[in-house]
């Protein structure tokens, strides 16, 4: 099995199959992060794709100081926050014409209805958090980065991350308990 570094080298020489393997390796993590940030909406798929397209276009700039997963997650968070800002702007602009957001219905026969329901309720609870809190909750609690790594990724003091994380957990707990 090739390492990320080997696959990147092959992909930067034009090996599409190597790049496909990288996408397959990280797609689940990135899609989870983006859908956690944006919800199960059509734009989430576009943003997740954009993460890999951005990486493809700037592969030469990747120095490998952080792991590829961390690097891609950082791009995913930035693009998701941009999408949230764009969404907020268009919501303001077209408030009178706005409709409730369409949710993607991704059929997965291997999933039990209980699991689907649980996944859906967690997704909704995450969406109820403010973006700043949601980002931290996803990085720390869903993606499993440490508080230090989360702080470094978001360029925030560790204390800020810890306090936002505490508030996010309280809110998530309250929302999920109320359901």
């Amino acid at each position, binding site marked *: 099995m090739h390492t990320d570094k080997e696959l990147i080298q092959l992909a930067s020489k034009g090996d599409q199959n190597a790049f496909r393997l990288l996408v397959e390796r990280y797609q689940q993590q990135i*899609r989870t992060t983006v859908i956690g940030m944006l919800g199960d909406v059509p734009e989430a798929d576009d943003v997740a*794709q954009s993460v890999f397209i951005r990486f493809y276009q700037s592969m030469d700039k990747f120095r490998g100081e952080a792991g590829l997963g961390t690097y891609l997650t950082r791009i995913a968070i930035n693009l998701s926050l941009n999408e949230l800002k764009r969404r907020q702007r268009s919501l303001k602009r077209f408030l009178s014409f706005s409709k409730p957001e369409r949710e993607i219905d991704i059929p997965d026969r291997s999933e039990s209805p209980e699991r689907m329901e649980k996944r859906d309720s*967690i997704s909704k609870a995450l969406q109820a958090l403010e973006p700043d809190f949601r980002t931290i909750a996803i990085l720390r609690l869903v993606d499993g980065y440490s508080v230090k790594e989360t702080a470094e990724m978001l360029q925030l003091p560790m204390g800020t991350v810890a306090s936002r994380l505490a508030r996010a957990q309280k809110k998530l707990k309250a929302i999920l308990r109320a359901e």
Partner: protein
Amino acid sequence: MDREYDQILNVLIRSLDGALPASEEAQLEEALRTSERLRLEKARLLDLRAELKDWSVPEDPDFAARVLSQIGKQAEEDLSGVIIRLFPRVAAACVMVLAVALGTIYLTDGSLMLDTIIGVNEVVLEEAVMLVDSGF
């Protein structure tokens, strides 16, 4: 009372993400020993964290293919973009070369007739016949 509880709850939440100072750790241990409510809260928090850790979206087997297709499309768009960007410059350069060539012909021959432009007027009939005979 609630404010005190809230403070110790914050300590509890922080304890799940890293080591606490010794004094806070002792305070939390004591509170957990005496408060059933806090113990329950800890259990709920651990459940919540386990649920979030397990939370992931369903697999999408076509995702990689969609990404590669988008990259292919973008590469095509980039190429046509380059052509569109370069076209006005190339066209302007061609027009300039043509204008200079026509200007030079006009200055040397004083005319812009088709024969002058293609140089036919400089060839006399005998020379033309000789050129044809020589197999040119």
